[in-house]
């Protein structure tokens, strides 16, 4: 017995694999990004912690009845967590700027091209259709959408896809400016938008989420959960009569779910499966999707500028990629670096909110098309 027990006592040390050690390094990088660089710490820190706990030798945390397994089953497998977080996001999102400039929806739509462009690239690289769609969804540049879609189409890629999605979202202020400068002329960047003075009544603000839910839910049932959750949160917010629920959904609930979500996703990053060439491909394709989103958004915005006779600042197109609300703030920064008196922020916010909606729609569309044809 003693020998067996001794062996069992040393099981931990002997069970340590090189993949585990590499994953500890990966987790270390994520922690550095989260803590030192403040890149999406709310997600990357729990993900890194989950990855460490999952890669410990013989980790009881990912065994049956393990803590991380429980969390995964409780909210990732059934897609509960991303939807709950979407309710919270809806409760925190102000669609006012979009309601004031409805045409901004076009930029939101353009900002999703990267999803499909990368889907094609992934197919060419030999990924399966479901995998390719899951990789493409990184181009939604929206965390919960990526988790929701890839969780259904390719759960085994959930880890790298989520990490890519959140890391690149945090990198918006780094990645976007060069692209924006490359595709626009200083003159274009200096264009000042006319303030959209229109006031939006409370009635419209309340009808908006209901209308979107009915419209999208009817035309693309597969998008109903994402859009429904987002708009439910926004309805609670705009109704102004359920502050308790709005607060709970956007604070207590969102916090707890974010923690569990991060841990559960981190637990999928087990060395043996994570350390594959595919993972690197995913990280690479993700950044391509990112660039394509921004580029198409900018190009469409340049078109709008031409149509509007030079009164539309093309930078705003870059805000259509969602990554709410960072993209809009980056647009403001870049515009201001050309002309300190220029304030396209509110218009960019409109495009940004449109991108948020468009991302969820695109996610549903992708599910419908791929799930429909995959089998």
């Amino acid at each position, binding site marked *: 017995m003693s020998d067996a027990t001794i062996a069992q006592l040393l099981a931990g040390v002997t069970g340590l694999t090189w993949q585990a050690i590499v994953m500890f390094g990966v987790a270390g990088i994520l922690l550095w990004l989260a803590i030192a660089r403040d890149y999406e710490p709310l997600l990357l820190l729990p993900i890194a912690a989950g990855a460490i706990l999952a890669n410990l030798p013989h980790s009881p945390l990912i065994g049956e009845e393990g803590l991380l397994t429980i969390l995964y089953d409780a909210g990732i497998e059934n897609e509960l967590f991303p939807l709950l977080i979407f309710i919270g996001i809806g409760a925190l999102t102000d669609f006012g700027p*979009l309601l004031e400039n*409805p045409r901004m929806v076009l930029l939101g*739509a353009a900002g999703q091209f990267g999803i499909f462009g990368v889907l094609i690239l992934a197919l060419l690289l030999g990924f399966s*259709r479901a995998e390719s769609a899951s990789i493409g969804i990184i181009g939604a540049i929206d965390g919960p959408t990526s988790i929701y879609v890839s969780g259904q189409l390719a759960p085994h890629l959930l880890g790298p896809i989520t990490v890519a999605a959140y890391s690149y979202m945090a990198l918006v202020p780094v990645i976007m400016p060069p692209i924006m400068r490359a595709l626009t002329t200083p003159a274009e960047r200096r264009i000042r938008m006319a303030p959209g003075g229109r006031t939006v009544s409370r009635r419209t603000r309340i009808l908006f989420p209901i*209308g979107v839910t009915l419209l999208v839910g009817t035309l693309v049932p597969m998008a109903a959960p994402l859009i429904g959750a987002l708009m439910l949160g926004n309805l609670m917010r705009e109704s102004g009569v359920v502050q308790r629920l709005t*607060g709970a959904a956007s604070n207590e609930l969102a916090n707890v779910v974010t923690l569990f979500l991060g841990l559960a996703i981190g637990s999928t990053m087990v060395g043996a499966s994570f350390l594959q060439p595919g993972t690197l491909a995913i990280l690479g394709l993700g950044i391509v999707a990112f660039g394509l989103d921004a580029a198409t958004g900018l190009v469409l915005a340049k078109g709008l500028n031409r149509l509007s006779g030079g009164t539309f600042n093309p930078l705003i197109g870059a805000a259509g990629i969602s990554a709410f609300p960072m993209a809009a703030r980056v647009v403001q920064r870049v515009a201001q670096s050309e002309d300190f008196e220029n304030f396209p922020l509110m218009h960019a916010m409109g495009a940004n909110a449109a991108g948020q909606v468009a991302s969820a729609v695109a996610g549903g569309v*992708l599910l419908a098309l791929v799930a429909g044809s995959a089998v």
Partner: protein
Amino acid sequence: MDDLGFGLWVTFVGMGLVFGLLVALWLLLSLALRFEARGPGAADERRATDEARLATGAAVAPAPERIAIRPTDGGPPPEPALVAAIGVAVALHAESRRLQAAPAMRSYWPGSLLFASRWVSAGRTRQSQSWHRRPR
């Protein structure tokens, strides 16, 4: 190469659907905005925003924003601390007013009981106090 075909098809149909849906949304919005009543709209607007602010639970956060306190007598600007203090005060007071003045129709149960307990209790106390006092 079937996969490429599939990819192009998905891209074509997908982007089409996304654009289609958002254009439909655009039309819907323009329609809604057609029926905008400006005046009341603005009013509701403000009210909605106030409520939304209070909604955050941290009624205090936007306080400094809300109050553009300026010394009427052209004196020096007040201390930030004072500004913030008054900010808290105004927010809290606004909340209390809002909840005490709530119409009889307002539903206090099960949710708002927290507020009821907070503020209505105060009002009720005053009520019964004044009732105790009257004899004197």
